């Protein structure tokens, strides 16, 4: 109710105000020598470990400026601290948009935090680009044309697993275990997207609460249905339990685990490294600890950047490969803009990225957008646990919109 009324109001107000805005301020945040970009991140608080992403991006814009900038302009990148609290995110975002008058917003961190500004930025027509969150709701160009995510969403990941299952076992019976919240439900939606009408006949589901002590009963219940495929959208603690339990009761399904919960130290070792052999997950980034990338041109480019611009950065922290990828995408959009850095054109370029390679992403995985598809990364590669490490196999698989 409220939303629809709000939309109606916003659109009518927007229609009335549009000519005035266009005349009053053509390109906020852009001068002859500078483009001002804003962001928020958790520089303090419980999840401040993500603040290295902002450090990485600052360093990337510094490198860009050292190399002459873009469109004859230098990039000024302002990051404010929201401590991962949604009200603070709104405060800081308004500060960026209304006081600092940034050209647009880039890579703000977090799902609840971005939710708090989702409507604000879309009402004001401020590009809200390449957010640091894996939720699915950012790829909704019809209702929120100014907001765009970057990394593959959990929903895309589930679509990819389901596609692989259909290819390998067209008559599979799929058991789906997911956590009963937004995170888990994205997996449910992803499986539904691919199976459509067949979902009812092919899939049995079980859910768990984040507060449950164990998920043993769900595993037993799913095994009893005779399923031969198991897809798990659960957090690391339950992932370890699931892997162990499935092994211990002698169930041998083709088992998929969300890539949120595949850390060797946190999941595989507690579960028992030998119990997880054959487990499948996915990734879109190059793992810097993988010897396969020791001489890789893309990763060497990243290492060179780290050495010169973030000399004290932890090379083992994969937030830096993430930051490098998302920063590369942003710079590509700026280059595409030519000499027109108006909000309309920035958004227009952001939704028209031709498939491009990014140094820190796996070979074959492209960043791309279309006006009706905001899933900037929609491909992943599967990998299998061999008892010691994750081994990539097969081709890159594409999820949403294809």
């Amino acid at each position, binding site marked *: *109710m*409220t939303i629809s009324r709000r939309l109606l109001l916003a659109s009518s107000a927007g229609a009335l105000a549009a000519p005035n805005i266009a005349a009053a301020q053509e390109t906020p945040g852009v001068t002859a020598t500078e483009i001002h970009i804003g962001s928020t991140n958790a*520089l303090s608080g419980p999840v401040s470990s993500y603040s290295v992403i902002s450090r990485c991006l600052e360093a990337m814009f510094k490198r860009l400026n050292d190399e002459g900038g873009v469109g004859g302009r230098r990039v000024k990148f302002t990051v404010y601290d929201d401590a991962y609290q*949604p*009200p603070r995110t709104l405060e800081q975002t*308004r500060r960026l948009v209304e006081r600092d008058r940034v050209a647009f917003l880039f890579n703000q961190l977090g799902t609840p935090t971005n939710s708090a500004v989702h*409507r604000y930025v879309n009402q004001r027509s401020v590009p809200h680009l390449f957010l640091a969150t894996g939720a699915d709701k950012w790829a909704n160009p019809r209702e929120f044309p100014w907001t765009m995510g970057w990394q593959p969403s959990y929903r895309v990941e589930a679509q990819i697993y389901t596609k692989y299952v259909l290819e390998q076992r067209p008559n599979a019976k799929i058991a789906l275990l997911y956590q*009963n919240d*937004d995170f888990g439900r994205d997996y449910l939606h992803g499986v539904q997207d691919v199976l459509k009408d067949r979902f009812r006949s092919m899939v049995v589901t079980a859910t768990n609460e*984040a507060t449950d002590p164990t998920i043993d009963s769900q595993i037993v219940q799913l095994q009893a249905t005779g399923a031969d495929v198991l897809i798990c959208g659960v957090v690391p603690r339950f992932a370890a339990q699931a892997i162990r339990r499935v092994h211990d009761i002698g169930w041998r399904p083709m088992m998929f685990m969300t890539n949120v919960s595949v850390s060797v130290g946190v999941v595989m070792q507690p579960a028992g490294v030998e119990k997880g052999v054959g487990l499948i997950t996915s990734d879109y980034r190059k793992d810097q600890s993988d010897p396969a990338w020791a001489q890789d041109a893309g990763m060497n480019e990243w290492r060179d950047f780290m050495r010169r611009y973030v000399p004290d950065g932890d090379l083992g922290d994969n937030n830096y490969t993430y930051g490098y990828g998302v920063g590369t995408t942003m710079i590509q959009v700026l280059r595409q803009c030519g000499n027109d850095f108006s909000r309309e054109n920035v958004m227009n370029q952001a939704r028209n990225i031709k498939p491009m390679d990014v140094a820190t992403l796996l070979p074959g995985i492209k960043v791309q957008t279309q006006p009706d598809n905001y899933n900037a990364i929609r491909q992943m590669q599967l990998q299998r646990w061999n008892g010691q490490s994750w081994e990539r196999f097969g081709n890159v698989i594409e999820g949403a919109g294809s």
Partner: protein
Amino acid sequence: MSLSPARFLLVLLGLAAALAPLWVLESFHLFQLTMAVIMALAVLGLNIVTGYNGQISLGHGAFFAIGAYVTSILMAQADWSFYATLPFAAAICGMVGYAVGLPALRLGGLYLALVTFSLAVAVPQLLKHKALEAWTGGVQGLFLMKPDPPRWLTSVLPLNADQFMYLNVLIVSGICFLLAWNLIRGRIGRALMATRDHPTAAEAMGMDIAALKTGAFAVSAMITGVAGALSAVAVEFVAPDSFTFLLSITFFVGMVVGGVASILGSIFGGLFVLFVPNIAESISRAAPGVIYGMILIVFLFVLPEGFAGLVRRLLAKLSSPENPKPQ
């Protein structure tokens, strides 16, 4: 009560200072100030139970959250007007506060602090719970809409939504501050303080300690709940992550910095907890928490009785040479 001319002037000045930002500040700063006033109101609520009644509460973020959610659910799910939700938010928070006040009768000091703290930790998780999700929107939270200024007002006084919100917050908070002031300087206020300072003596004087303690909790939760309701509308969004236990600590910091058991101090406390983190961040982006902590320590050293204590001392100094009090 009659106002002396000097007092009257002071009230007028205060009113002017509160209203001036409407025209002086641009939208963003006005929004910040709106949030600061809301924080001040929440700190006032905490001050009543902790400052005046001596019951330590580390759980006022929970009341803030409940107030915010009552208003949001009524507005988003039942399409109520914002104004109609305020009494409900206040009433429900008052009831919850009363219920929390009951264990407070048996538990004192640090134990009570822990009980209330557990409330602050539990509420965000309860808001995500499946059983409540149909109402609370779960992790996604709820979106609402600021009230638009009515036409009769805009025809006299051209206000945009942000200015109107500030005005609303100012009026509601002003009423709450006045009521709290009235409560504190009367019979009940003295009874609250007597219970804090010497419960045995207070009881011997015939005061009903149990009723006072639970009553203080109820009033305190009510005020903080109203602040929560205002914040939900000002931010136009609520989610469980907006109300982590850190919020309760923030109120506590605001109360101590502003001045324990001081109504004026609550205002300063609200301004402090909203603006100082921003100042800290502008000094050091790498470690804003460290700077914030340092500013906090400096404040506690320089102003041991909070901001209100400083004002009290200054006033005493100003008045003493002119009319020395007889010893």
